[in-house]
């Protein structure tokens, strides 16, 4: 295919246009007469002038420089890049959903409220929680809201010195960042050799200043935290609450529930577990769920039902307040709702069983050429520590970049931080054995290349629209917009 390297601004030509608008049908004076001149700009807008076909080709050619789940295997650990069913896109774009104004009278949006109400119930059932709030815009936003609830809970009890949140060193960066945003000090604890919570380290930091503990289960190493009950009891006995980061929920749907493990507050990522597209970075959706006695603290509004239909309830006396405009990412909720209905209870369980099966199969097949961080049965994902016969020269980054030439999106790399040169692989349930086998073949080929010709990997990729990019130059020169 022909190379395409143009910015739309470079295609701009005076006099071209792509828009059409009706002629003005009201007999009014000019804007200059309607509005005081001191408010009006006297400059031309600095936007491109291009034709419709220019735009269509531009974005089509740009899309060719991208790689999505629809393009191929996308084993990004911790991101759950599963297939995004097309019917869900159709459902979300039904005009009866997509053209609703958020402030319409409630009698005109009963169907939309019903979607939210039903989704709330379904997610609460999957989580083992009492009630959800669908408002958080993403996982990190859910964490912030959930931690605010934990803070409000302690304050309500008059327990004002609990200003610390425990976060394991294996946690995703958003965990400590969200805790800091929510006004907590972060206490980091070391993980044990399998990436689990080190019980002694936990005990050592538990005291009456601890507001709670943030945890994913399965852990970021893809292993189930067997001691979860012990951990929950310890935190609860010390007066703290447990926060569940739902990043790894794809491993356990219908098998066990965060609520039954002892978690008090949770968030899900609808864009991971519940198949809504990642959108090249968003929109996500990060609903939070809480146990019964924490419901009064949820952000407003929550969706409730009364005799004459569904409504948005703003009357929560202990609410943490408003965390976002309107009610959350409704369009994303419709997709997740459609997904859960399509899967059903048995389907969701099959999702988790197959996700775990696929991960274990991949791990076993890769063992011959790669070091496994923790060599035992894993859940939905696992971590490689790099090549078995390490040439020292070839880094995890080199492996990832060379994998691009084999037509795969690389796994998550250098995360979790507790594993040196981590390669984190999450196949998800929507990939076939054939796909996994092809990926294994590519990974084995990589290992051979690393032995025979390390330089080949150091300079990879070769088949992408661009070669390896100088990141330092970008940070140094800070060219953050186009100019002539």
């Amino acid at each position, binding site marked *: 295919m022909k190379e395409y*390297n143009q910015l739309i601004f470079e295609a701009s030509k005076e006099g071209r246009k792509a*828009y059409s608008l009706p002629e003005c049908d009201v007999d*009014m004076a000019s*804007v200059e007469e309607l509005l005081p001149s001191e408010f009006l700009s006297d400059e031309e807008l600095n*936007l491109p002038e291009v034709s*419709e076909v220019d735009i269509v080709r531009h*974005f089509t050619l740009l*899309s*060719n420089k*991208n790689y999505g*789940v*629809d*393009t191929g295997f996308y084993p990004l650990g911790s991101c759950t890049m599963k297939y995004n069913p097309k019917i869900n*896109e159709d459902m979300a*774009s*039904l*005009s009866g959903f997509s053209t*609703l104004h*958020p402030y319409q*009278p409630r009698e005109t949006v009963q169907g939309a409220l*019903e979607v939210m109400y039903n989704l709330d119930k379904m997610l609460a*059932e999957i989580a083992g929680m009492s009630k959800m709030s669908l408002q958080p*815009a993403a996982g990190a936003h859910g964490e912030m809201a959930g931690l605010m609830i934990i803070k409000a809970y302690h304050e309500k009890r008059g327990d004002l010195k609990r200003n610390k949140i425990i976060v394991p060193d294996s946690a995703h*960066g958003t965990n400590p*960042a969200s805790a*800091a945003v929510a006004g907590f000090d972060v206490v980091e604890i070391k993980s044990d050799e399998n990436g689990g919570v080190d019980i002694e380290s936990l005990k050592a930091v538990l005291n009456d200043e601890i507001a709670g503990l943030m945890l994913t289960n399965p852990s970021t190493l893809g292993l189930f935290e067997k001691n979860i009950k012990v951990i929950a009891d310890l935190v609860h006995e010390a007066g703290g609450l447990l926060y569940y980061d739902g990043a790894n929920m794809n491993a356990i749907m*219908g*098998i066990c529930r965060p609520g039954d493990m002892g978690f008090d507050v949770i968030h899900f990522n609808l864009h991971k577990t519940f198949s809504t597209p*990642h*959108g090249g*970075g*968003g*929109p*996500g959706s990060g609903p939070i769920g809480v146990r019964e006695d924490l419901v009064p603290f949820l952000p407003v509004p929550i969706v409730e039902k009364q005799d004459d239909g569904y409504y948005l309830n703003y009357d929560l006396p202990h609410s943490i*307040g*408003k*965390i976002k*405009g*309107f*009610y959350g990412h409704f*369009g994303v909720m419709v997709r997740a709702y459609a997904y859960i*209905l*399509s*899967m*059903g209870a*048995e*389907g969701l369980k099959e999702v988790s069983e*197959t996700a*775990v*099966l696929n991960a*274990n199969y991949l791990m076993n097949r890769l063992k011959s050429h790669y070091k496994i961080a923790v060599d035992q*049965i894993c859940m939905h994902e696992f971590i490689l520590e790099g090549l078995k016969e390490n040439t020292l020269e070839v880094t995890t980054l080199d492996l990832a970049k060379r994998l*691009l030439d084999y037509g795969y999106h690389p796994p998550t790399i250098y995360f979790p931080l507790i594993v040196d040169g981590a390669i984190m692989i999450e196949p998800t349930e*929507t990939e076939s*054995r054939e796909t996994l086998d092809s990926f294994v073949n590519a990974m084995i080929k990589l290992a051979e290349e690393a032995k025979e010709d390390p330089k080949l990997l150091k300079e990879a990729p070769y088949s992408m629209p*661009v070669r390896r*990019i100088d990141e330092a130059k*970008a940070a140094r020169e800070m060219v*953050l917009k*186009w100019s002539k």
Partner: protein
Amino acid sequence: MHRYIPNTDADKKLMLDTIGVKSTNDLFIDIPEEIRLKRSLELGKSISELELSRHMKELISKNNGTDELTCFLGAGAYDHYIPSIVKHLAMRSEFYTAYTPYQAEISQGTLQVIFEYQTMICNLTGMDVTNASMYDGPTACGEGAVMACEATRRKSVVVSKTVDPEVRKVVKTYLQLRDIAVIEVDMAEGVTDVEKLKNAVSKDTAGVIVQSPNFFGIIEDVTEVEKITHDNKANFIMYVDPISLGILKKPSELGADIVVGEGQSLGNQLNFGGPYLGFLAANSKLVRKMPGRIVGQSQDLDGKRAFVLTLQAREQHIRRYKATSNICSNQGLNALMAAIYLITMGKKGLREVATLTTKKAHYAFNEITKSGKFKPVFNKPFFKEFVITSDIKANEVNKELLKDSILGGYELEHNYEELENGLLMCVTEKRTRQEIDGLVRIMEVL
């Protein structure tokens, strides 16, 4: 076997053999018995596409959107025209099924789109830098206020009461979390009371937030506010409607340090409130205090132009609890739609949208207030929204309008007690003279 799961029973058997276990159950041995769910989830059975569509169609039959109703409702979410190509191009699955562009070489599409989006947001607002987008306008405003506090090392922010109440609520939530004081300044005649603002701003003030056009649609004269803000070495934060920038002065010309706003009007559907996108732009001094992703230009090994996520040392995955924000996503797909919209409308089109909108809003204002039954509440220059009042309760007016399939204005007394019976009407370029005349006819006989 479910349609979204390709492995057959035979595949699964072979895979279990490779792993060396007998059944899938053996893969879950680490989960203690006591926390296992001993029943099925109560979610019902899997349903087919046909059943799903039928169910969803039943649900939407209980909704009436702006396709069926003529919309005169705004207040933060707007019924502007969306060119057909926005949807077609944004729905290319290479864009929407991709993840965050951390692996730059395989994500040049997404990265270039964001770079172009950043360029246009900077050009529209006149600011030096912007990021890859925020969750929405209100949260962008909250983060902008936090930035001001970080930059000045002060812990107090002044907000005008003419700022959208929804935005103020979110700003309060974001700031109270960090023990930052929020001081609200009253309004006078529908605009920020400059005298009161002057008293509220001090050497402790990190930022001053003013919206223009404000919540009532009025274009605020910010000359004094800017002066007061900068005299106190605080940051001037403007919350703006991007469509209005088709004709109004750029925030940079008005002395803004940080510019935030709701980007929904730029090619994004109403979607019952989301997903939208927030934009956040600033002067270059503040770039290292910015939250979220930023795309920068660089080059590859062969010297070819290429794009990457940059200045990541600000972000949570590197700095953890010391990050500028906990935000980890952007509204990538919504920013893509905004970019396609801005390119499609282009230099002339955005100006024309803003011009049509202004004219139609003024036409509607003249016609609605002509007979005196509905009176203007403020006598100030406005863009696409204006406030009217009458002897009739606002919700009564709306109820009657709805009978004629008209979505009336925003009922202001929910948020402004003093504006009893007040309705905030919104008119975009989509409204026709016929629709406006129809609205006026009904209102006249209420």
